[in-house]
């Protein structure tokens, strides 16, 4: 029985890899169908996720663990929001739409906005001239930060050009080198999985 998942992985991996080389309309129709199946499988996965979330928080509430009222809020939301969605729909102006617009969207935007603050504190701590390489990094960072915004042009008309060169030449060269390594690593991992060399994701026992 343990060979069945390996066989499924091998066959589906080999089939999808082959479809990349076959432009025939029938093969591409199969490709589209496989992609649709992925969507269906993921829809079921959401049920799994919801169950996992429910069990994790229900346990906290049952044990009255620290912070259990927050778990209670999660459980109520987990039931109420899908319920409201089924009852009143999810379009603009519906209760779910309003919850999304007035609670979810502002909270998510605020979290993203925090990035500006943590980037500043991380830069303050990380950009220290401790070695020759670190000094080079520091100087490049300063040129980039100044040269990429309007104030850079006021300081020196050459700064935007220097930043463009930094982005186009050293940055792109390093990125491409890392990207080639990542690409080969990804191919290697994919082959290991398709050929059954790497099986830890199956939970081997």
């Amino acid at each position, binding site marked *: 029985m343990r060979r069945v998942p390996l066989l499924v992985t091998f066959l589906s991996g080999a089939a999808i890899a082959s479809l990349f080389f076959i432009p025939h309309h029938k093969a591409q129709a199969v490709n589209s169908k496989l992609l649709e199946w992925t969507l269906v499988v993921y829809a079921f996965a959401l049920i799994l996720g919801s169950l996992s979330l429910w069990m994790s928080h229900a346990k906290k509430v049952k044990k009255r663990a620290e912070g259990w009222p927050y778990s209670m809020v999660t459980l109520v939301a987990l039931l109420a929001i899908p319920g409201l969605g089924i009852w009143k729909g999810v379009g603009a102006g519906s209760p779910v739409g309003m919850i999304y617009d007035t609670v979810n969207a502002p909270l998510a935007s605020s979290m993203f906005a925090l990035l500006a603050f943590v980037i500043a504190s991380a830069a303050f701590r990380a950009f220290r001239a401790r070695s020759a390489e670190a000094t080079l990094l520091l100087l490049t960072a300063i040129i980039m930060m100044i040269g990429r915004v309007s104030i850079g042009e006021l300081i020196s008309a050459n700064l935007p050009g220097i930043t463009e060169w930094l982005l186009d030449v050293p940055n792109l060269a390093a990125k491409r080198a890392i990207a080639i390594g990542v690409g*080969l*690593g990804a191919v290697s*991992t994919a082959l290991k999985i398709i050929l059954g060399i790497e099986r*830890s994701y199956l939970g081997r026992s």
Partner: protein
Amino acid sequence: MLRSAPVDQALETRWFDPARLNVLIGILLFTAFLVVNILRAKANGALYVRPIAGLKALDEAIGRATEMGRPVLYVPGLSDMSEVGTFAAITILYRLAQRVAEMGCEIEVPCYDPVVATVIDGAARDAYSKAGRPDAFRPGCVHYVSAQQFAYVAAVNGFMLRERPAANVYMGSFYAESLLLAETGNTTGAIQIAGTDKVTQLPFFVCACDYTLLGEELFAASAYLGKEPVQLATIIAQDWAKALAAAAIVAALLLGALGHPQLAAWLRIA
């Protein structure tokens, strides 16, 4: 005027796209390198792979967590099972969970994707069994949190600030949340080890973490930690492929400079 090529899928009757012959040859060569190195590993046993500082530090991190009686937090990235980075994160977790089980400390794995959570749960249970400590596995230590990027970040950051894990390990595919997670971890004083295949996020991890696995090191990590000859052989095959890619780039450049751009054109992926 710019215009789409008149491609009509319904009329396509070819069973092979010759423009993709280069990719096919590349994959066949890579597979050949893999087979040759696996045979070499089986014949010779040990293969040398250069040490990776971030992976050596994993043991230190688990030891620290055990001494302090605090958990290890493992964040397996924010992608689904269609990303190879997620597979790398799962295979690394498998090795890490074995060490955690052996050392007798706690691990916490909050997941962004429900399928990933299920797969990791199975892998972690198996890792504990393999370490001879199936009873030590705490059900619920691998759990789904939210498939919304910043809701997930809020939950993980909250865990860091409340539970103060001794070690935070970030492995897999990360996006805009990378610095938010790593900076919060930094404020708690945890030892932090990160690895991602997302090149854009690497500078953020380098700034905020103690050790960072750069790109391909993420994919090599599982083989490195497992030390199994067949796994190590895949890293060497990867290096051979990289050498071939570098040689092809240099050759294409030289030939192009000499007025023969055919190789450069052939290497282009259609």
